[in-house]
């Protein structure tokens, strides 16, 4: 027979008190708390472009997330830096493929979408 697990009654009482308190402390989340989801939803529809920049002797990998139907809506994020350019190029392409929704790269940014006013 298994050795019974014995918990000190005072400790057990305290843990029950904490369980009771959970129902008073915890409250339901508000819809506003979930707004980050809607705010960042556009990121799932972006084309990802990798960018290498030489900064202070290191090759910085930056990823640019651009919305494919509105290229003016984009963000650029620094990911990591490498001292070897070949390694940085390889890692950058891997990172782009991981980050992109469309891994084969058929989703491209439509430059025609940029309607620059000539006025």
């Amino acid at each position, binding site marked *: 027979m298994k050795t*019974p697990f014995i918990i000190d009654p005072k400790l057990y009482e305290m843990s*029950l008190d904490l369980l009771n308190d959970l129902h008073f402390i915890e409250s339901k989340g508000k819809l506003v708390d979930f707004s980050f989801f809607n705010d960042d939803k556009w990121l799932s529809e972006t084309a990802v472009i990798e960018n290498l920049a030489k900064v202070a002797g290191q090759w910085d990998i930056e990823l640019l997330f651009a919305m494919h139907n509105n290229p003016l809506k984009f963000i650029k994020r620094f990911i990591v830096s490498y001292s070897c350019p070949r390694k940085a190029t390889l890692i950058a392409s891997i990172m782009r493929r991981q980050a992109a929704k469309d891994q084969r790269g058929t989703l491209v940014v439509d430059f025609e979408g940029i309607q620059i006013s000539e006025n």
Partner: protein
Amino acid sequence: MYSTKNKILNASIKLFNEYGVASVRLQQIADEIGISVGNLAYHFKTKDFIVSSVYEKLFDDFNLILGNYLLSPSLEDFDKQISSYFDFFDKYHFYFSDLFSNEHQIPKIKEEWNSLINKMDLQIKKRLEFYAKSGFFKEINRNNLQTVTDNVLLTLIFWIPQQKMQSKIVSLFRYKNAIWCLILPYISNEGFPELQKVLNDNNLL
């Protein structure tokens, strides 16, 4: 899978309930499921091994009920736990002789029973305290709370054997009724609609 081991354990529980743990022989268990004593001995060397395994199963079931403490803040949660206690105490009636024996053939079993009953007592007390704090209960002083706890515990554990002793019908409906009747006088106006919902769901009172 419904293995021979499980069949042996279920038959043992049935026979323990009917004749008591001490009176059941291996031959009876083997006859109950239609196997030979030799086959039985292959799975469990002695009766002590069967008794240990039955108690292991029993304590696992009890721990499962204790693990479902206050999953939601409603009175319905307590109602669900009452149903689980009924199933448990009805399935293992032989527990009754254990609770009154001073010594058990396996001392660990007595120790485990004590620990579990103490946990159950604490859980009921803390649950009632929680309901008082959430406004479901009227203002209740410590002494009264302890008395209600003791009464609920007594009813949960001893209601089934007491009814059987008087040859009355043992049903979940009557069991729940007995417990909610103890709690009813302490329910506040705020808690009454909640209780009404639980009672209506079960067609009680």
